[in-house]
């Protein structure tokens, strides 16, 4: 569909700059034309209308004379009017049925005046001069015909003057229009050149490039800012992908290598079926670990993709916490830990219930894992604008310098290096928090770690 429609547009108009320029020129030309039409109507047109009105009034007066006193009175009036005509622009002619002149200042009936219309504009010859006249023909009873007109030679000169002026104005308009259009196109191109250059550089691999701002805070600057924000986000995602692929290469290679080594070793050196079975089972366990890491990674990716946001709904956090506390309470007890709980009977939250469940479970998993025997793990929640779920332990904590990086995928602090785990637990909590528009903050519980999961209340974004 698209290429076809592209062929239909003329090649030149495919440039948006040219299209804007043409549009500009057309608008400019149209307004100039409108101005000229109005000027014409207000000057030459007005004179025309005034002349016609005067002729009509004249005819009216003469017809009244005819009705009052017949041909004689009419002839008298015509003579009178001619005598009174100071400007010498009035034209009268009264003829009889044979078109022989009876009175007036035309020597004969002009041959151009026919019987099929009433208004004429034609050159006439009067004693002493040739000029242009506007003439109204009027038929009187008894075969008499009356012509009443005005000499419009001066007006014709004015009109040609006006035409010349407008014509030269039109040329000026044309030149200005084209010049303006070119300027428009230039402005347009320059404004887009920065964006286009940046986009080209980025496609070529220079991801650090940003669209320069003109500082005028206009629409183009706003566009540039939006594009820069987008590039910023893409950059962050790219970093994430790079970091994850590095981590995958690093962290999955180890268990895969271990499984492979076990199997190869068993194939080469196992002396009994029991040896073989043991090796295979251990390799299976290694592979299960790999699968678990993959599943955790995919789950985080799924959360980060944000497709579940459509399923967000209000829910009560309190029973969710009660259930989790019950699930983990038994584990805490078995490990000689005390689990202290504190929250209101009802905590309204908004989001994906299962995700929040998993996030809090991960925090509890961590807290229980790192707590020394006899320690205390606190699960508390506070509402107030946003809901804060806090999990506090008395384990080794995370040094301040590492806290910011702790929720990264596969990040494992010094203290965690020798405990089981994939290094993805906090990454998932972080992803859940971000999807909900909330946050995960890690602070010092002195001793231990205090993890705070904040979820905005009742907002979808």
């Amino acid at each position: 569909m698209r290429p076809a429609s592209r062929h239909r547009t003329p090649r030149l108009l495919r440039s948006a700059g040219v299209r804007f320029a043409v549009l500009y020129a057309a608008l400019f030309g149209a307004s100039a034309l409108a101005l000229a039409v109005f000027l014409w109507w207000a000057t030459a047109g007005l004179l025309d209308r005034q002349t016609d009105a005067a002729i009509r009034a004249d005819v009216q007066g003469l017809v009244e004379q005819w009705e009052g006193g017949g041909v004689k009175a009419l002839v008298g009036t015509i003579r009178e009017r001619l005598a009174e005509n100071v400007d010498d622009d009035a034209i009268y002619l009264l003829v009889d049925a044979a078109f022989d002149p009876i009175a007036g200042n035309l020597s004969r009936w002009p041959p151009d005046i026919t019987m099929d219309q009433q208004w004429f504009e034609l050159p006439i010859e009067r004693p002493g001069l040739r000029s242009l006249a506007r003439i109204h023909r009027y038929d009187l009873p008894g075969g008499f015909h009356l012509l009443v007109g005005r000499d419009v030679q001066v007006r014709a000169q004015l009109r040609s003057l006006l035409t010349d002026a407008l014509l030269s104005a039109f040329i000026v308009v044309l030149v200005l229009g084209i010049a303006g259009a070119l300027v428009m196109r230039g402005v347009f191109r320059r404004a887009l050149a920065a964006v286009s250059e940046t986009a080209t550089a980025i496609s070529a691999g220079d991801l650090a490039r940003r669209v320069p701002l003109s500082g005028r805070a206009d629409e183009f600057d706003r566009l540039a800012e939006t594009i820069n924000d987008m590039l910023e986000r893409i950059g962050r995602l790219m970093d994430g992908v790079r970091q994850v692929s590095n981590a995958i290469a690093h962290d999955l290679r180890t268990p895969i290598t271990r499984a492979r080594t076990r199997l190869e070793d068993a194939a080469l050196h196992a002396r009994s079926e029991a040896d073989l079975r043991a090796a295979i089972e251990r390799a299976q366990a290694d592979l299960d670990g790999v699968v678990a890491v993959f599943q955790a990674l995919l789950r985080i990716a799924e959360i980060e993709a944000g497709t579940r946001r459509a399923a967000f709904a209000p829910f009560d956090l309190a029973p969710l916490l009660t259930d989790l506390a019950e699930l983990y309470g038994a584990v805490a007890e078995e490990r000689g830990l005390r689990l202290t709980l504190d929250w209101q009977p009802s905590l309204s939250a908004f989001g994906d219930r299962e995700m929040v469940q998993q996030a809090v479970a991960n925090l509890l998993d961590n807290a229980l894992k790192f707590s020394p025997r006899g320690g205390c793990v606190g699960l508390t929640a506070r509402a107030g604008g946003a809901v804060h779920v806090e999990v506090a332990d008395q384990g080794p904590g995370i040094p301040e310098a590492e806290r910011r990086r702790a929720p990264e995928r596969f990040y494992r602090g010094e203290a965690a290096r020798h405990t089981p785990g994939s290094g993805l637990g906090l990454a998932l909590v972080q992803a859940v928090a971000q999807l909900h528009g909330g946050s995960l903050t890690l602070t010092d519980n002195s001793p231990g770690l205090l993890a705070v999961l904040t979820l905005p209340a009742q907002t979808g974004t």
Partner: protein
Amino acid sequence: MRILVVEDDKDVGGFVVKGLREAGHVVELAENGRDGLFLAASETFDAIVLDRMLPGGIDGLRLLETLRSQNNNVPVLFLSALGQVDDRVRGLKAGGDDYLTKPFAFAELLARVEALARRGKGEGPVTKLAVGDLEMDLLSRSVRRSGQKIDLQPREFRLLEYLMRHAGQVVTRTMLLEGVWDYHFDPQTNVIDVHVSRLRQKVDKPFPTPLIHTVRNAGYMLRAES
């Protein structure tokens, strides 16, 4: 039990069929959606193991939707590499009874298929469950063993109820987490083991013979004789 496996991957299909036969079931294998639908519609099965992505124009979802539109209520377990929450939801909405993501442990698949096939033969609502000398009254929510009353917390009661309803079958940790707690994620810690061991303290320890058995590499089983 008669089980239909619809799976296009020859290795996975062969492995599942072999495993199910070893467990004593009669198994039919269909390698594409068309054959699967034909078999499922023309013969009676106790359960179907259904892959989602199948060659032959009819994928797992279409197959199941067609079956359900014919009022065929055979229990169906999806076995699929599509493991996102949305995929699972779509599978269950189409009429699936359970959803297992690849890669899977055979013990998990076997336990779930057997649980499904047995559930298909539901005898209607029950008010009493009994395994050996262990009795559970679902109305008064009381548990007795050898006539001796056992006090259980509400969650322990539900855990025991789940085990008793699946008596004689292997129940995996994931099944317990889903069936008793309604959680659909795997905790890092051995939470289920801790809860089962607590239940054992009350149900098994005071008595000469244990009822709750650990099945290696799989999960747990409640049965009367050891």
